[in-house]
């Protein structure tokens, strides 16, 4: 820092060197702005150092009165409770305003009164709705014990419960309700005719004869047997159109099914984007964490919601850890800047090898999933029944392999990343991205292997019905069953891991004395892994809802129970993570991962709708080649005007021009943001140079004052006073003309207007 002789503090911390600083226009305008809401009455005794100046400022009150009045009228518009003043002054303010309102006309008064009561109503409604929120008290308790990082996980879970419920209501009202209501409303249901070809044979899968108890369990867990031809799966919806004679209209169920699918995907997209809008803005456009990480930690680091001594201790140690990590990162950055060329080559080579290794591991996992799916499908088709447990294992083989892969690969990735020598923040993000990729593509691989079996009819044969009708007479139901199995298995695994791994771990750590237990330590609530778990479940739900319309309801119930399981496990078993997870960036991270899941889920659905021929033996799309065909057929049956409009909207000309316009808008906005950033940097530099100029000029002025003893009679009063700490208010009061002179100039040059 440059020569700081202009500012030096005495032992009490007050800056006492130069009275000229207090006469500067910028400081005066600061004081005006601060005195603004109070207008000269009693104020809190919190600026003991500067309050003595208020006396001297009264002399210049006349010159600033008009400015105050102008500001007061501007401030009138602000609500009273937003003003930073004490309660007594707020009340006085309110009475003033009320007094003013009495002077208004009755129309004005009525308007004010309605505005106030509307505001009151809005506050009450907001309180009512927030008290209706699910799990408000539980989340409050968790927030108090573990802070806002873990809280964000649980509110994310609550969001998913709401999302799944809405998706289920959508599917229910558009698809299931008409079928249920039809007999009661005397609707005429047209079923899909079985045209007798061998494509439309659908053997019944209900069990006959004496059935063992354990077969019911295996049916419940795998969605076969008695569950296969129920409302649960796609195959049940053989309805084509429902005609309601009372209102003389036809309900096209096939179209409704298709549109419901598209609708729930779009609804999820809009809701997630809306929820992430604020976090996104902060994260992408500003991204100030790199630039003020220390400020954020010190001024916004302590979580005031913590009301538990242990949590406070842990928060303190985590803040300490964060600060030390940041200082460490600074040192590492310096180290990286000092790397030689040889070091760089070595590190890049190492990174390339490790990335290849990672790709190899991923490929091996995907191949394992492919093989497991094939085995499982073959066992089902050949109907080889060994015994209950082995059958169940064959059914669940893909799920088991996926879960194992998802368990091992994060451990592997976190070991590998240590050798790649990145900065700590980047390490965390990169490992997370790898885990996300692993989890979400494993579902894609499962579906891909299923489809390759469905559309494979023999080595050189093309499929007669567009799919392998001998093995999969209703392939959508089969895919739905796989998704159902994945969901159930996921839930069982989460419950089992909590019961059989976390609780015993806590008991062992608490009661055992051996060193191994102490080294293992108590469970930490790892937020990223838990979030990936539920995003994985939600992706399965999105993919599966088309094939299994009741899956969202099952997922709602599943997440409902998972909330309680996780909460109990958190409170009883876990200690908060030593590596703290910041609430703001985590909010954004959850929603980004969820969006990735949504995009990856819409791919298989798009392929099923548009590419693969739908089953001819079941489902609402029997009369069409592919599921998507319903839409063009319906459009062609619409009146001419609507048909022309829809054709125009879906033509290439419109799509290309829309795309071009969107690209242009995006480039413009990006360019604007870049320009703003440059302007901000320039202004920042300018401010810094102005500050330096100001200090330089003040120094020169001080020197000039010291060098001119003749004209110094005004400033001499300084010496008779105590030499160590000249109090500036006395020098002020003795230089009446001086202060008045200077006080007159601010209104022209002050910066507060």
């Amino acid at each position, binding site marked *: 820092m440059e020569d*700081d002789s202009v500012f030096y*503090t005495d032992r*009490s*911390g*007050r800056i006492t060197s130069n009275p000229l600083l207090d006469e500067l226009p910028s400081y005066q305008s600061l004081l005006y702005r601060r005195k603004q809401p109070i207008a000269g009455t009693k104020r809190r*005794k*919190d600026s*003991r150092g500067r309050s003595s100046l208020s006396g001297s400022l009264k002399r210049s009150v006349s010159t600033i009165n008009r400015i105050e009045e102008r500001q007061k009228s501007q401030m009138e518009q602000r609500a009273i*409770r*937003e003003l930073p003043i*004490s*309660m*007594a002054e*707020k009340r006085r303010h*309110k009475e003033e305003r009320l007094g003013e309102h009495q002077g208004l006309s009755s129309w004005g008064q009525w308007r004010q009164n309605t505005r106030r009561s509307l505001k009151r109503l809005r506050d009450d409604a907001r309180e009512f709705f927030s008290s209706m929120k699910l799990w408000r*008290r539980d989340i409050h308790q968790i*927030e*108090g014990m573990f802070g*806002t990082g873990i809280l964000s996980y649980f509110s994310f879970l609550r969001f998913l419960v709401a999302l799944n419920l809405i998706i289920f209501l959508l599917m229910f009202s558009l698809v299931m309700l008409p079928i249920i209501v039809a007999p009661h409303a005397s609707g005429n249901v047209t079923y899909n005719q079985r045209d007798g070809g061998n494509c439309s044979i659908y053997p019944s899968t*209900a*069990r*006959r004869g*004496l059935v063992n*108890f354990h077969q*019911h369990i295996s049916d419940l867990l795998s969605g076969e*047997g*008695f569950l296969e031809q*129920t409302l649960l799966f796609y195959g049940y919806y053989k309805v084509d159109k429902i005609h309601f004679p009372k209102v003389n209209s036809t309900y096209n169920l096939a179209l409704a099914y298709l549109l419901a699918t598209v609708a729930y995907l779009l609804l999820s997209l809009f809701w997630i984007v809306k929820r992430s809008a604020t976090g996104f803005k902060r*994260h992408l456009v*500003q991204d100030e*964490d790199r*630039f*003020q990480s*220390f*400020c*954020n930690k*010190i*001024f*916004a*680091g*302590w*979580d005031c919601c*913590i*009301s538990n001594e242990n949590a*406070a201790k842990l928060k*303190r140690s985590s803040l*300490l850890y964060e600060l*030390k990590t940041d*200082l460490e990162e600074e040192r590492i950055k310096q180290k990286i800047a000092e790397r030689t060329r040889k070091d760089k080559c070595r590190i890049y080579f190492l990174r390339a090898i490790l990335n290849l290794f990672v790709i190899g591991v991923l490929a091996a996992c995907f191949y394992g999933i492919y093989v497991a799916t094939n085995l499982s499908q073959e066992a089902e088709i050949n109907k080889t029944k060994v015994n209950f447990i082995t059958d169940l294992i064959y059914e669940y083989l893909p799920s088991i392999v996926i879960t194992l892969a998802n368990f091992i690969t994060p451990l592997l990735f976190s070991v590998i990343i240590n050798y790649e020598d990145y900065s700590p923040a980047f390490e965390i993000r990169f490992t997370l991205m790898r885990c996300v990729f692993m989890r979400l593509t494993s579902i894609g691989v499962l579906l891909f292997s299923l489809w390759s079996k469905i559309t494979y009819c023999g080595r050189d044969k093309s499929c007669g019905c567009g799919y392998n009708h001998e093995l999969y007479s209703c392939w959508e139901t089969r895919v739905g069953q796989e998704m159902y199995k994945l969901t159930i298995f996921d839930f069982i695994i989460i419950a089992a891991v909590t019961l059989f791994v976390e609780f015993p771990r806590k008991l062992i750590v608490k009661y055992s004395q051996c060193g191994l237990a102490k080294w293992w330590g108590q469970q930490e609530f790892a937020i990223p892994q838990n979030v990936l778990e539920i995003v994985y479940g939600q992706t399965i739900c999105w993919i599966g809802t088309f094939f299994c319309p009741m899956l969202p309801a099952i997922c709602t119930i599943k997440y409902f129970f998972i909330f*309680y*399981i996780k909460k109990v496990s958190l409170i009883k078993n876990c200690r908060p993570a030593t590596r703290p997870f*910041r*609430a*703001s*960036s985590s909010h954004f991270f959850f929603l980004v991962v969820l969006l990735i899941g949504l995009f990856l889920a819409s791919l298989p659905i798009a392929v099923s709708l548009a590419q693969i021929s739908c089953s001819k033996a079941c489902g609402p799309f029997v009369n069409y080649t592919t599921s998507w065909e319903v839409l063009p057929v319906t459009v062609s049956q619409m009146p001419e005007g609507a048909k022309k409009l829809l054709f125009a909207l879906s033509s290439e000309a419109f799509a290309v021009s829309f795309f071009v316009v969107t690209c242009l808008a995006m480039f413009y906005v990006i360019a604007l943001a870049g320009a703003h950033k440059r302007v901000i940097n320039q202004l920042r530099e300018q*401010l*810094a140079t*102005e*500050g330096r100029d100001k*200090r330089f000029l003040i120094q020169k002025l001080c020197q000039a004052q010291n060098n001119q003893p003749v004209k110094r009679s005004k400033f001499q009063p300084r010496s008779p006073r105590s030499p160590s700490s000249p109090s500036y208010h006395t020098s002020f009061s003795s230089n009446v003309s001086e202060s008045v002179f200077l006080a007159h100039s601010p209104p022209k040059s002050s910066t507060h207007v």
Partner: protein
Amino acid sequence: MVASKGPGCGPTPDLLFGSGLLLSRYFISDWAALIKKKKAFARRWNSDGPVVSELESSDMGNKQTIFTAQQLDAYQDCTYFTRKEILRLFYRYRDLAPQLVPLDYTNQPDVKLPYELIGSMPELKDNPFRQRIAEVFSEDGEGNMTLDDFLDMFSVLSEMAPRDLKAYYAFKIYDFNNDDFICKSDLEKTLNKLTRNELTEDEVKMVCEKVIDEADLDNDGRLSLEDFQNMINRAPDFLSTFHIRI
């Protein structure tokens, strides 16, 4: 139309019952604890007798005798709380010292609770800045709070207060020497309170330097209110951490 059923199909009821029992065992203990807490909570409130039952019987608070209607109105306008919350906060304030705080505030008694009682509230007792918070919001600057100050404090710290208002008070809180600037010594005191003096001297100095580097715009070596507010606008966590739920 129901799918064709053969004989002997359908899950047996005891399967469902068994799984329900297994799951519920783990929730019942949690719910039992919650119910116990609710009962304890209700018992504490009911110790005040008739006034509380009046509060509970009339949602609109028409029959409550603690404040006049104008007082409640004024509080609603001057804070971010609804009527119910204001009354609830009054009871929290009274619980700190039932013998000092009268049940009748219609004639505006001048009651101040000493800082020790305020600082021992569960919401504040673990906060390293509780003394500064009490000092900033109290009228006398020593931490002894009247009911007005109490309501004001929790209103600013509630989730509905806007960012600028919170930033203003946060600045006051971190300004230990009350000179309207956060200088290096203020920063050192803040850091030491946050970490309980567990950083070394060098580290403290480095951190303070970095903070001033990051936030000081007019380059005078200390943070003014404008610098601070500018910095807070770019701190995404501030609204959620500078918040006490009561």
